[in-house]
């Protein structure tokens, strides 16, 4: 009798365990994120204070106030955050935030929003940077942000150690989003590549995409690559830019031979611009001193896109 009861209980426990994932996906997601955090005592002297907290798009404001809007722009899905304290030293603390951004491109996007052009880069995850108080990196769909209580060397060492643990716990290889490979490497200024989720250049009719700065001679110019979901939408964006130039620019001149469609023009906000559309991509160079200087960069970008997309 006892054996039969034990058998039934075992079957029930195993069955419930197996169904847990199916019926409690929220707790599964939460524990997935929590599992990426370093263990309570990841380094001698450190321990995790309380249980980690989690936030979703509906209540992210409670944690980071107005900054939440930027995360929402980038498709934020979930955050788990934990506080670590160092025993005996009051001012030693470490906050670790792990953001699930839904995709690698979004994770890069929010990371690139935070990374300044003078950032000191580290080899953690796909790209990491360190400042006196913070260490941030992204890997896969995760953006990880660590904040130290003070800028001591000990805190920095601990931040690096904790970041490495989190990076190792995130499954998969540390790679960059494939869209970044559209940007030519020559003359690209360090730490200037960013991903904007929508409205490149601040124009509502342009799609989201990449922006990066290039040094051409003495001049800095801005390259953008718009990533429309389809050719039709890219055509609409191109036409939107043409209309903008007609309204508030001058010297609009359509070009043939560069891409499926292209124009040179003087934009009231971005000076001389050269814009071309290839399939679902809208490529442009702005802030040019003369049209010719941007043409080779634009051609190089179109070529890289063609190679990657074939």
């Amino acid at each position, binding site marked *: 009798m006892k054996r039969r009861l034990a058998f039934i209980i075992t079957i029930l426990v195993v069955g419930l365990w197996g169904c847990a994932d199916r019926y409690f996906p*929220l707790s599964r997601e939460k524990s997935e994120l929590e599992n990426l955090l370093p263990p309570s005592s990841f380094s001698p002297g450190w321990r995790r204070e309380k249980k980690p907290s989690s936030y979703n798009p509906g209540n992210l404001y409670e944690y980071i106030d107005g900054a939440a809007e*930027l995360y929402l722009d980038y*498709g934020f899905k979930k955050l788990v955050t934990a506080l670590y304290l160092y025993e005996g030293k009051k001012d030693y603390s470490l906050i670790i935030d792990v953001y699930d951004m839904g995709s690698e491109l979004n994770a890069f996007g929010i990371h690139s929003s935070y990374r300044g052009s003078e950032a000191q880069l580290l080899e953690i995850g796909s790209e990491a940077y360190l400042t006196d108080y913070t260490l941030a990196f992204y890997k896969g769909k995760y953006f990880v942000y660590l904040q130290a209580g003070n800028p001591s060397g000990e805190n920095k060492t601990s931040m690096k150690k904790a970041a490495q643990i989190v990076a190792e716990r995130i499954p998969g290889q540390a790679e960059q989003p494939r869209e970044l490979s559209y940007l030519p490497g020559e003359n690209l200024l360090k730490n200037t590549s960013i991903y904007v*989720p929508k409205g490149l250049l601040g*124009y509502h009719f342009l799609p989201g995409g990449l922006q990066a700065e290039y040094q051409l001679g003495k001049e800095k110019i801005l390259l953008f690559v718009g990533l429309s979901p389809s050719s039709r939408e890219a055509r609409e964006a191109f036409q939107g830019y043409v209309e903008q130039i007609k309204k508030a620019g001058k010297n609009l001149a359509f070009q043939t031979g560069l891409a499926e469609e292209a124009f040179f023009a003087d934009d009231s906000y971005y000076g001389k611009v050269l814009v071309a559309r290839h399939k679902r991509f809208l490529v442009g160079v702005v802030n040019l001193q003369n049209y010719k200087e941007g043409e080779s960069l634009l051609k190089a970008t179109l070529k890289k896109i063609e190679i990657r997309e074939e």
Partner: protein
Amino acid sequence: MKNKSAPEGNSVVNRQMDRREFLGETSKGILTATFVLSSLDPLSLAGKWLAKETGEKESPRVQGRKRNSGPVEYRRLGKTGLMVATIGFGAMRTRNPAVIHRALDLGINYIDTAHCYQGGNNEKLVGQVIENRRQDAFIATKVHVKNRKEMILSVESSLRSLRTDYIDIIQLHNLRKPEQVTSQEAMAALEQLRKDGKVRFLGVTTHENEATVLKSAAGTGFYDMVLLKYNFRSSPAVKEAIEIAEKAGLGIVAMKTQAGGYRSKEMGNLSPHQAALKWVLGNKNVATTIPSMVTFAQVEENFQVMGTRMSWNDRKTLSRYARATDKVYCRLCGECRDTCPDMVSIPEVMRSLMYAEGYGDFPLGRSQYVSLAPDRSAAKCLQCKRCKAKCVNGLNIAAKMVRAHHLLTRGYS
């Protein structure tokens, strides 16, 4: 009431008139008048008076007359005495300096940022803009309540990022409780910063428990202004607290004025944004607002609101907006999760739909939706005869799932 628009001739003008026409017509007159009356310029005199009354720094309004458009409405920001355009610039999501330049060119003269936005990059972006036109804008930034030394270091870092030697308004960031408002450590840090000339005016920000924080700030007599969440969905208690605070001399700045910025098909071509802003500015105790602006189009749309009043059509629009969003606005509370026996990821589908419809970001909504595992998407809902999913706020989940699937898979290949 402290609704002081700019002196005649530079204030609210006939909205029927095109800006170019306005400039063309007025520029001739202004040239002549400026030549004759330059020494008696009322704006200049007012600005100098304000500067004398409120501190050493001259008002941007005085020197910011290079703007290339006329109709700007100003109100006094409480006891700071600053005359601020009723539409300010919320910079937290802005990535292109050109968009801020455009706003300043139009005459918008209040920029809101924070040390923590974009990891400090947002202040740097604002600094890049104001470096060569500091006189055109009042700068408001924020500091978290910490110990005195850390707060002072944080503000000094903000000064470097903003490329300026003074901040017009420093605000304690995101306060929820009265004891945060009256923190002696924080108040001492702010007082020190003001004494050292690094900041001119002091404030607090709140978007939770707003009425209590507001009354508490008013009670101290220490602060000059409050930035709070205020929109047409705010409770009467908040409105009442605003009145008390304003009477106590606090300048009132409203944020999150759009109540979610939700657009829906049920609204047709009507945009509720302008009506929502007008509603906020209809409360004359509010000096300015800081709608978040990312694109030139948003700058233009918000700018048009200045100097206008809620019309019957606006009320109708807002009322439709409120009704429409009541039915469609998902609060993302997550209570519906697990209520579908077929395991459709309802909150994720809802969020995708919100990106597409609420934020007007269709590509983002679609990319979120198609990234869902096929067995968790709303495709199953097309065949479902009897939806068992429940929304605690009464949303029609079945209809929204079907709508999301049709909308977010349209034309996708």
